[in-house]
C-alpha cells in the first residue's frame, strides 16, 4: 500500500457557509452527487445532511422522532455524547483516527428515537470541492429500541477537487429490535485518498444491513468496518460492489464478530478489476452458538489488475456453522457463447455477464439511485477493457 502523507493536505481553512437548498450546485456537481446517491433535486422526505469541505452546510429533518444534526452541535447539546462518541473506534488506532480526533471538521449525528420507523432513506452527503484539503469527519448513527432507519451516505469529490483526502470515523449503534440499513456510495476521483474507520454494535434482535458501492476510480482507499453482534438474534449483512479501474488501489473488507447465540452474519462482495488492485478481506468470527455465517467474495479480472481475496472464518465453538466461497476468475467462454447464440455480439455478451455479476440485490434502494448505479455499470462497458 502506498503511504498517505497527511501533511500534504490542508486540514483547515476550507470553511463553508450554510446551504439552504441545493439548487445552486452546478449540473456537473449534481451529477457527481447523484452518482454518490444524493438526488439534490428530489430531497428526502425524511431528512438530509450535507458536509462540504470543512463545514456542515445543511441539516434538515422532516420527521418526528428523527434527529439529524451536525456532530459538533450534537456533542454540545448532549454533553459530548458519552455513550456514543469514540466508543467503538479507538482514537489512537492510527494517524487517521488521531487526525479526525484532534481536528474534527464535522460529520453527522443521526438518531431514530425508540419505535420510530423511518422508511424513506435519510440522505447524507460528504462532499469535497476544493483541491488539496483533508476532510475529517465523525458520524454517529443511533437506532433506538424498535426503530428503523435507512441512511444513504454519499461521498464524493467535485471535478476540481484534486489531491484531496477523506478521513471518516463512523460509529453505529442499533439497540434492541432496531433495524439500520446503511447504503454507502463512493464517487471519488483518481487522486483521492480515503480512510474510513467504522464500527458498529448490535443489541438483541437488531438488524444491520450494509450496502456499499464503488464504481469510480479512487487513488487509495482502505477500510474494514467491524460489526459486533452483542445481543441474541442479531443479524448483520454486508453487500459490496467494487470496481477498480487502472490506478485504483482498494483494500477493503468487512468484519463481523458474533458474540451471542442465534446470531447470523453474511458478507457478500463482488469485485471487478479492469487494471486496479483490490484486496478483498472478510472475517466472520463466532464466540457463541448457535451461530450461522456465510462469506462470499467473488472477483473478476478483466483486462489486467489484481484481486487478492482473503476470507477468514474463526471460531472455537462446537456446533458453529460458518462457510465461505471465494473465487477469482474470468468470464466463462461458455457463457459468452450462450449469449452469442442468441444474437448478442461478443461485447454485448461480455457486458451483459458483467452487469449480472455486479447485480447484487440491495434492499431498499430508491429507484433513482438504482438507475444511477445501473447507468454507471453500463458506462463501465464503454471502457476499453470490455
Amino acid at each position: 500500500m502506498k503511504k498517505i502523507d497527511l501533511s500534504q493536505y490542508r486540514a483547515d481553512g476550507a470553511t463553508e457557509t450554510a446551504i439552504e437548498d441545493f439548487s445552486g450546485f452546478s449540473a456537473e456537481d449534481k451529477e457527481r452527487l447523484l452518482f454518490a446517491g444524493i438526488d439534490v433535486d428530489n430531497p428526502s422526505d425524511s431528512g438530509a445532511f450535507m458536509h462540504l469541505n470543512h463545514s456542515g452546510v445543511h441539516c434538515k429533518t422532516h420527521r418526528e422522532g428523527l434527529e439529524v444534526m451536525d456532530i459538533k452541535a450534537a456533542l454540545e447539546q448532549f454533553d459530548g455524547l458519552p455513550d456514543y462518541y469514540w466508543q467503538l473506534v479507538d482514537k489512537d488506532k492510527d494517524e487517521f483516527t488521531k487526525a479526525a480526533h484532534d481536528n474534527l471538521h464535522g460529520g453527522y449525528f443521526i438518531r431514530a428515537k425508540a419505535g420510530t420507523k423511518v422508511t424513506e432513506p435519510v440522505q447524507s452527503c460528504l462532499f469535497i470541492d476544493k483541491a488539496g484539503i483533508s476532510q475529517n469527519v465523525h458520524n454517529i448513527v443511533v437506532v433506538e429500541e424498535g426503530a428503523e432507519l435507512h441512511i444513504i451516505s454519499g461521498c464524493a469529490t467535485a471535478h476540481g477537487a484534486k489531491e484531496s483526502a477523506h478521513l471518516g470515523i463512523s460509529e453505529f449503534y442499533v439497540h434492541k429490535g432496531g433495524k439500520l440499513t446503511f447504503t454507502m456510495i463512493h464517487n471519488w476521483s483518481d487522486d483521492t485518498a480515503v480512510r474510513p474507520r467504522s464500527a458498529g454494535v448490535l443489541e438483541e434482535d437488531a438488524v444491520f444491513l450494509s450496502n456499499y458501492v464503488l464504481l469510480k476510480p479512487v487513488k487509495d482507499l482502505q477500510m474494514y468496518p467491524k460489526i459486533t453482534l452483542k445481543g441474541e438474534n442479531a443479524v448483520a449483512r454486508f453487500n459490496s460492489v467494487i470496481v477498480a479501474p487502472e490506478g485504483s488501489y482498494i483494500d477493503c473488507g468487512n468484519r463481523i464478530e458474533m458474540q451471542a447465540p442465534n446470531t447470523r452474519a453474511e458478507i457478500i462482495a463482488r469485485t471487478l478489476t479492469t487494471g486496479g488492485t483490490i484486496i478483498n478481506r472478510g472475517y466472520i468470527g463466532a464466540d457463541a452458538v448457535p451461530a450461522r455465517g456465510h462469506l462470499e467474495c467473488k472477483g473478476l479480472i478483466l483486462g489486467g489488475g489484481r484481486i487478492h481475496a482473503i476470507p477468514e472464518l474463526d471460531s472455537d465453538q462446537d456446533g458453529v456453522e460458518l462457510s465461505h466461497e471465494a473465487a477469482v476468475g474470468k468470464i466463462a467462454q461458455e457463457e459468452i457463447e450462450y449469449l452469442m447464440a442468441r444474437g448478442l455480439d461478443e461485447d454485448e455478451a461480455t457486458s451483459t455477464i458483467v452487469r449480472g455479476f455486479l447485480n447484487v440485490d440491495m434492499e431498499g434502494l430508491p429507484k433513482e439511485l438504482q438507475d444511477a448505479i445501473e447507468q454507471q455499470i453500463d458506462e463501465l462497458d464503454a471502457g476499453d477493457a470490455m
Partner: protein
Amino acid sequence: MLEIKNLHVNIGDKEVLKGIDLVIEDGETFILFGPNGSGKTTLLMTLMGFGNYTVTEGQIIYKGQDITYAPMYERARLGIGMSFQRPPTIHGLKTSHLVRMCGQGRDVDVEGLAKKVNFSNFLDRDINAGFSGGEIKRSEMLQLMAQRPDLVLFDEPESGVDLENMALIGKTARNLLDGLAEGCTMKKAIKRSNTSGLIITHTGHILEYVNADRGQVMYNGKLCCEANPRDILDHISNHGYQECLRCLSAETGEILDLSSFNEAS
C-alpha cells in the same frame, strides 16, 4: 435453407466430422440419429459456430450465404437458433431479461410466451440457476419462441425430460417448426411455414410430436442410411445400431464396431 458440402471438422487435433453432405429445404424437418460419440452434437455446434469446432474443409451455405466462418452472433441474427442441452448458469441475468434480448430488438411478449411453456414462475430467476432437466428445456423453448429462428437446431430435446414435460416440449417444438399458433385454422395449417429444423435424437420420442420429413444416421463422423425417420427409428428399435454398423461396413468395406466410437462430441 441449409446446404452442407463435404464438411470436415476437428476438435483440437482430432477429426470428428469426416465429410458431411446434407441439404435441408425450406420448411423441412430433418432428424439425425446416431450413437454417442458419432459426431451429431459436433455437427450442431459447428453449424451454430462454437469456437472449439474447427472447420478444416468444406462449406456451410445458409440462405445462399457462406457462413462457414461467420461468427456465432451473425448466424443467430441471420435466423439460426439452437436449443442447448446443458446451458451455463449466468448469475444476475434474469430469465425474462434474456428472453427479451432473444427478440433482437423486436418487442417480445415475455409473459405471454412464458405462459405457453408454463414458465411464468421462473422469469425472475437467474437463467438456468438450479433448473431441472425439464426446466432447462422449457427455458430453451421459451428463448427460441422469442428468437423466432428460421432454422432451429434441437440437441436431444427429450433428454432428461419426464413424460409430462415431454408432451409440452414436443408440442412447443412442433409449433416452432410449423409456425402454428394454438386454435389455428385448417387453411393456415395447410400452408406450412418456412421454418426448418435439424433435430438430434437418441430415443426418437420427439417423432411422436413433430412432422419429420427425412432422417439419417450418423456414424463415426459420416452420414449414412437416409430414409423416412420412422423407418429408421423402427429399424434401430428392432436391431440396435449394431445392425446399422454391419450395413455400413458392407457399404464401405471397412470393419466397424461400436467400440471404435469415442466420446468425441
